[in-house]
């Protein structure tokens, strides 16, 4: 199978334009993965589905779930807590399309993060993450207790 040309209108949302480039993948659980896009099978299921639809006499109703599974090389997770961040190396990742929210191509000439962000170690970011989680929990708890006041 050859990659669809980017100007082909039917296949134009193809990820082929991002191949071998550094990309950011936002996942449904809020995690941010970065790495080089090495492969994807966005329309891999398409051919099969087309065949199926023709078989069922719905040639005009070609439909299949778009998966947009992706393979990331040199992947790392970027954890951001406030103004701290940390890149945790992950190696080679195959991401199942249903978990993907957004795939962004990074502009290599632009700063990836605002200048005031500080890189910290994995241990430190884990600690910050935990502190943030506890703070959120406490906030939720306080709000619950104050609910009878009918604020905002």
């Amino acid at each position, binding site marked *: 199978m050859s990659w669809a040309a980017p100007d082909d209108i039917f296949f134009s*949302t193809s990820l082929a334009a991002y191949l071998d480039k550094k990309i*950011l993948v936002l996942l449904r659980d809020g995690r941010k993965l970065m790495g080089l896009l090495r492969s994807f099978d966005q329309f891999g299921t398409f051919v099969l589905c087309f065949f199926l639809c023709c078989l069922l006499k719905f040639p005009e109703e070609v*439909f299949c779930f778009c998966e*947009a599974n992706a393979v990331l090389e040199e992947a790392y997770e970027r954890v951001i807590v406030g103004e701290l961040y940390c890149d945790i190396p992950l190696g080679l990742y195959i991401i199942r399309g249903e978990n993907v929210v957004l795939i*962004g191509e990074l502009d290599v000439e632009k700063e990836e993060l605002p200048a005031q962000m500080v890189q910290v170690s994995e241990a430190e970011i884990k600690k910050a993450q935990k502190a943030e989680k506890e703070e959120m929990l406490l906030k939720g708890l306080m709000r619950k207790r104050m609910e009878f006041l009918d604020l905002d």
Partner: protein
Amino acid sequence: MVLRGFRRFRLFFSYFKDLVGQEVTVELKNDLAITGTLHSVDQYLNIKLENTRVVDQDKYPHMLSVRNCFIRGSVVRYVQLPPDGVDVDLLHDAARREARGG
């Protein structure tokens, strides 16, 4: 029939195809809102944007250097369109035709 149910996408697919090249704001289900030029759309309503900028940049520092992006159709909440990009009458007619099943 499951396959028939997805017919409803077709109207919006062709509708969005006409909007290619215009500036739109896509709001996702995780509250992230992205403005950019609509590059392309497919039958799952996946969207590709160019020259993107995030509406609330301070809240999403990791999006700073993203210029082009692919958004999975299933996570889109709203697409804000340019006011002159909508032919309301045409959309009305098409939607009614679709609803009648013809």
